[in-house]
């Protein structure tokens, strides 16, 4: 995996077997309560749902961080045509996601199997790279993360607060536009 492809999935080291078991229970409780279906098919369905976990958590970490800086008015003074490296010090980001798997059965309304995810990222010694009124990258000294991933109401994985190995620079793609504050 390249260094820039840091996603939410890479923060949660989920065991496939455990995930399958939890998802099986969750799907049983939320979907198959209305449907009589053989266990083999239920297991296969749980396996398929577990297989979508990578796609569910494919949100890049840079997008999450970038969304947090979206509308960050404190950087309005750097909204010019110059390049800046702003030492931002320490900050933390709390992020909540609710990806879900939509399961459709003919004859029944679609069911959503939700995977609530809460994430807390703590950055220190952050330097924001601003180019032409766009925050284009983040250079983090250190980053620690903790979080919790569940399937419906059953906890799937809980990440303790521990360091995240970040790449040297966390690019924000085309960048986050910084607007000048009206006087």
């Amino acid at each position, binding site marked *: 995996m390249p260094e820039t492809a840091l996603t939410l999935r890479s923060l949660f080291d989920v065991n496939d077997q455990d995930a399958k078991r939890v998802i099986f229970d969750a799907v049983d409780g939320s979907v198959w309560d*209305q*449907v*009589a*279906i053989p266990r*083999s*098919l239920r297991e*296969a*369905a749980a396996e*398929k*749902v577990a297989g*979508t976990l990578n*796609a*569910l958590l494919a*949100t890049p970490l840079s*997008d*999450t*961080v970038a*969304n*947090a*800086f979206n509308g*960050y008015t404190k950087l309005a003074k750097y909204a010019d045509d110059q390049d800046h490296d702003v030492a931002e*010090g*320490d*900050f*933390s*980001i*709390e*992020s*909540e*996601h609710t*990806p*879900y*798997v*939509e*399961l*459709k*059965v*003919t*004859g*029944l309304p679609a069911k959503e199997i939700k995977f609530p*995810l809460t*994430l807390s990222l*703590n*950055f*220190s010694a952050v*330097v924001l790279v601003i180019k032409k009124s766009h925050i284009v990258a983040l*250079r*983090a*000294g*250190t*980053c*620690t993360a903790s979080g919790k991933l569940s399937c419906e109401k059953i906890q799937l994985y809980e990440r303790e*607060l*521990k*360091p*995240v*190995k*970040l790449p*040297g*620079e966390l690019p924000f793609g085309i960048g986050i536009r910084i607007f000048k504050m009206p006087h």
Partner: protein
Amino acid sequence: MRRRKCRAVRRRALVACLLTASLPAGAASQVASSAGAQSKPKSALDSLKATIISQMAAALAQQKLAPKLWPAPMPCGGAQATTRAGGKTRVVVPGLQQYSVQQAVALAAKYGLNVEERSVRQDGTPNVVVSQSPPPKTIAARGDTVVVCWLRAPVIPYVLNVSFAAAQRTLADSGYLALPIDVIVGKAVKTGTVLRQSPRYGLSAALGSTDTLYVGVAPPPPQVQMPNLRGFTDDDATSALDAVLRAGQLKLPIGRRAVNGQSFDPRRSLVDSQRPDFGTVLSAGQTIELMFRDTTTPVPMPYVVGREYNSARATLRTVFQRGNLKLKISPRSVDGRANFATSIVESQAPDSGTTLSPQSDVQLVVRDTATIPVPPPPPPRQTLRMPRLIGSSVDAAIDTLNRLYIIGGFTPKMDTRGVNGSTYTHSRAIVDSQFPAAGDSLTLHSDVRVIVRDKRPFPWWWIIAGIALAGLGSAAAWMWPNPPLPPTPPTPPATHPSIAALNVVPYPDIGNPRVVLTTRRGETADDAFARLGLSFNAVADPGTQRLHEGEPPRAREETNDA
């Protein structure tokens, strides 16, 4: 003159007295007699004086001086020492009592006397001379031996591994009198030998105290049981019995006789029965009897069909041993599986009753009971609810009941009758009422009765009216044409319409909508999902973020190179 003679006689008598005081009794009497002899009386007065003097000397020698010349016996039991004062330098024996042995030896050496040490166990200060012989102030010659007795500290002697009598004697010699005896019974003890003593040897204990000896005795002979000697030859049976009797320390007579009371050859006979029986505890006074049977007696083949293989083999082994034959079994499995532990004999050869010979080869055909298929367990009971059939056609009702079989193994038996016994047409009949009612619980073999009635006659006149209206409408359209309609978008193909029709069974009479999905034989999960219309669509969520400034990191930091 006479007075001078009397003085001389008196002086000799006194010398004799002095001499006899330092001499033994015999010598004193001789001195006394010689003193009397030397003083030959020349008159009756002189002879009377001589007699008186001799009697005085004898009396002095026997009564007054005797304790000094013959001391009391030594406590150590040794012989009394004797002096040889005659012809040698005389010394007076010093008093050695209350001296230590070394001091006594040194003191005696100064007087030119030898010392013979003897110890005695008595209570008192140890290593001190308590008596001597000859006693002090005795006239002795240089080189004589003085026997001294000194006290030895009372110590319990070592009496282990000796006989009890010897130990008792040794302890008595050492001053320990009471000897209570305990007994130790063990396999490896030597009978009558002291195995342990208490207090330990070498310890100092007061005289007269007790020393407990533990003496080993032979254990009682173990109980032995009569062995099973059936099938044994005479030699083997004798050896086995000897071993058992030796273990039980028994000597029992063994009687041998033939089964039929006739004579038998021990070399060709085996023990057929025994008395006492196998397992009986043997005791003294019993008699063992062995009944032998000649092996030339024919042995019939037993019947082992239907028995477990191991049991049959044990029986055959016993029978063959009885006949002194060598067993040779050729087992064979019916289905080729060779787990004989769980097999039963299905057939045997030779047949039962056949006389066995040394060349007999027993063939057993076995069947493994584990290979017999076990019937599957009955399906778990499931509570089923009677579906609502009212209003549906007879075929639909039958189809609905058949689906119950798919769910829970329910085997419906539907009895269809017309309303009030009227006739009905199967293709046009609909369910008018049902028993059990919708929602009632069903057992696996419940009977379902439905009352059906024919549908109402088809309303043909409505059709005719509809056709007429349609004709009028088309005529009006021809007369007043409408603008062309926009092209209709192509209708997307229905996803698995047949699946919905086949596999989805709605139960309108049950509160929650319920769908039954089944699989087909040999169908993979993906195929089943495709057929049943299951789809999985993963939707990621970018989420919502909140930024907080200035919060310090709460864990140990890991530095990354910027």
